[in-house]
């Protein structure tokens, strides 16, 4: 209990730096491509962190992308067909994802983790198949013409004074959408952080270590597992729904199991052991994935050197190979340092400590020799 309440100074600093960076980003990165990449990072960060919340109880969900998709499609359809405002359609999308998560999670909540793994894998594929088979979702082609959030957000600032204020700050629809996205992301992070660092997260961790002992001290296994699934899919749904209104087009391919595999890789490479690991993993690896499109956008600008254009073409040509790198990184994590990226500092600290100790021992022995 002591451990979970204490927040280390380094991770607090990382949280603050990251928040400040993304708050100030629109000032330094004016182009839409950069902001789009940051938004993709937000989706990955929330997806990965909420996936980890489900994994806390020892169950790995392979359907997580599908739940992001359920949130996205629900919000998209509600906004497009019923004309709901984004402030209604986004929460409803999140609730839909949560409801579906709870229903499909119910039969597997008391089974061994291997069943949960297989069941979620199957449910994830099934959900995407249903989405591609339906007419209202636009089938395999996808959903188009979802009401854009930038219009809804600029609509909030009516009147001359307000719009003049926005102009003065240099906030267009794109920037407003970006900030709205950031707000939702931070909201999810706070919800998930509180969940894990309260006693609930602690109970879940107990549950993952020994379900039979947990039951013997009165922990209701199904209730707690379902709670983690509920919170996890809710956050997945809300970020998906926000994304639907940001990008205005959706395609079922964006939520297939391959995308869940990416989330799992982000989580495990970053480090599954604590809250900050998946965040670091998602930001770094998603940024790597975004590099080709960022380079292409940058080389389109006037006054770019020929070498840069050649370089960006080169990167673009080999971008299909990046999954290899990620997968190899995952293998390295699995076989060499299971704590992931965030465990590297403590590993270095430990090894240098050990080296110092060894040196001290050698010195001490040497000293004795001298004395002799």
């Amino acid at each position, binding site marked *: 209990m002591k451990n979970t309440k204490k927040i280390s100074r380094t991770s607090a600093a990382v949280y603050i730096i990251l928040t400040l960076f993304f708050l100030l980003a629109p000032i330094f990165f004016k182009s839409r491509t950069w902001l789009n990449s940051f938004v993709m990072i937000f989706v990955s960060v929330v997806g990965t962190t909420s996936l980890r919340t489900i994994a806390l109880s020892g169950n790995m969900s392979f359907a997580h992308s599908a739940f992001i998709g359920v949130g996205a499609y629900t919000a998209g359809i509600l906004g497009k067909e019923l004309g709901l405002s984004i402030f209604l359609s986004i929460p409803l999308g999140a609730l839909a994802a949560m409801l579906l998560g709870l229903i499909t999670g119910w039969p597997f909540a008391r089974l061994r983790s291997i069943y949960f793994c297989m069941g979620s894998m199957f449910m994830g594929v099934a959900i995407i198949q249903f989405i591609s088979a339906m007419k209202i979702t636009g089938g395999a082609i996808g959903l188009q013409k979802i009401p854009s959030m930038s219009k809804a957000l600029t609509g909030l600032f009516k009147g001359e004074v307000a719009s003049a204020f926005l102009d003065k700050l240099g906030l267009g629809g794109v920037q407003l959408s970006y900030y709205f996205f950031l707000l939702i992301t931070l909201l999810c992070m706070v919800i998930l952080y509180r969940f894990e660092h309260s*006693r609930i997260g602690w109970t879940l961790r107990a549950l993952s270590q020994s379900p039979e002992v947990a039951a013997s001290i009165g922990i209701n296994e199904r209730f707690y597992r379902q709670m983690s699934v509920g919170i996890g899919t809710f956050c997945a749904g809300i970020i998906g729904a926000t994304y639907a209104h940001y990008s205005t087009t959706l395609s079922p391919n964006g939520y297939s199991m391959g995308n869940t595999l990416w989330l799992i890789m982000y989580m495990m490479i970053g480090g599954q052991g604590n809250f900050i690991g998946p965040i670091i993993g998602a930001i770094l690896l998603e940024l790597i994935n975004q590099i080709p499109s960022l380079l292409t956008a940058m080389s389109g600008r006037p006054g770019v050197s020929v070498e840069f254009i050649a370089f960006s073409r080169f990167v673009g040509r080999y971008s299909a190979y990046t999954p290899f790198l990620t997968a190899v990184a995952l293998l390295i994590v699995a076989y060499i340092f299971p704590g992931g990226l965030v465990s590297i500092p403590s590993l270095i600290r430990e090894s240098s400590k050990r080296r110092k100790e060894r040196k001290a021992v050698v010195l001490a022995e040497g000293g004795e020799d001298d004395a002799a």
Partner: protein
Amino acid sequence: MLLETKNLTKRFGGLTVMNNINLTLNKGEILGLIGPNGAGKSTFFNLVTGVLSPTSGKIYYDGKDITRLKPHRVAALGIGRTFQLNPLFGEFTVFENVVAAHHLHPHSSVIDVYFNTKKYRENEKKVVESTEHILELLGLSHVKDELAKNLPHGYQKLLGVARAVATQPRLLLLDEPLGGMNPEEIIFSIEVISKLQDSGMTVLIVEHNMQILDLCDRVFVISFGEKIFEGTPAEVRNDETVIETYFGGVAV
């Protein structure tokens, strides 16, 4: 009468591991459940705590039918237990193991926990106090910051008891609490168990070690799922059937 089973029977496929067991347990007593390996003692525990459900028969706890309740419901009614193979929350410290076991008492709702309300913070203070007290009682205070998986075996067994005690049970089921302990630890554990009885708990012990007999008010002997004897420890020592089946014909 705190616990009563009526014609409790359990079959796995064609194999009957528990046949028509009628066991009663009075408030405040210590009952020893003994029998050779494979007699069905652990099965009995699993039936009472809801891990397994019986093929037929009924289990009453404090007059209530608890026959097919889920394990966590049984725990909530005030039945604490330990396990023979003694699984622990190995990645938690000893202190955290016992804190975790305060899941039921004092009760904080999920809302209280999530929003860190005043009620929850007060409860947590009580939990810490109670944990310190239990660790003191079981002689684990000096190892409270060790990871549970790093403890020596005897301490792990005691931690199992501490965890069960932390659920504030009225009935405590101990599955081989002395298994694998050294003589000093055995003497200490027996002391602890009698202290628990003095504090008002009813205890049901499954044990191989015959030193436990001195502690028991009554002894219930089963063999291959059948009751073969019930009586005081002194009677058990002199009963020929028991000596025959259990001690292999050699009087203790």
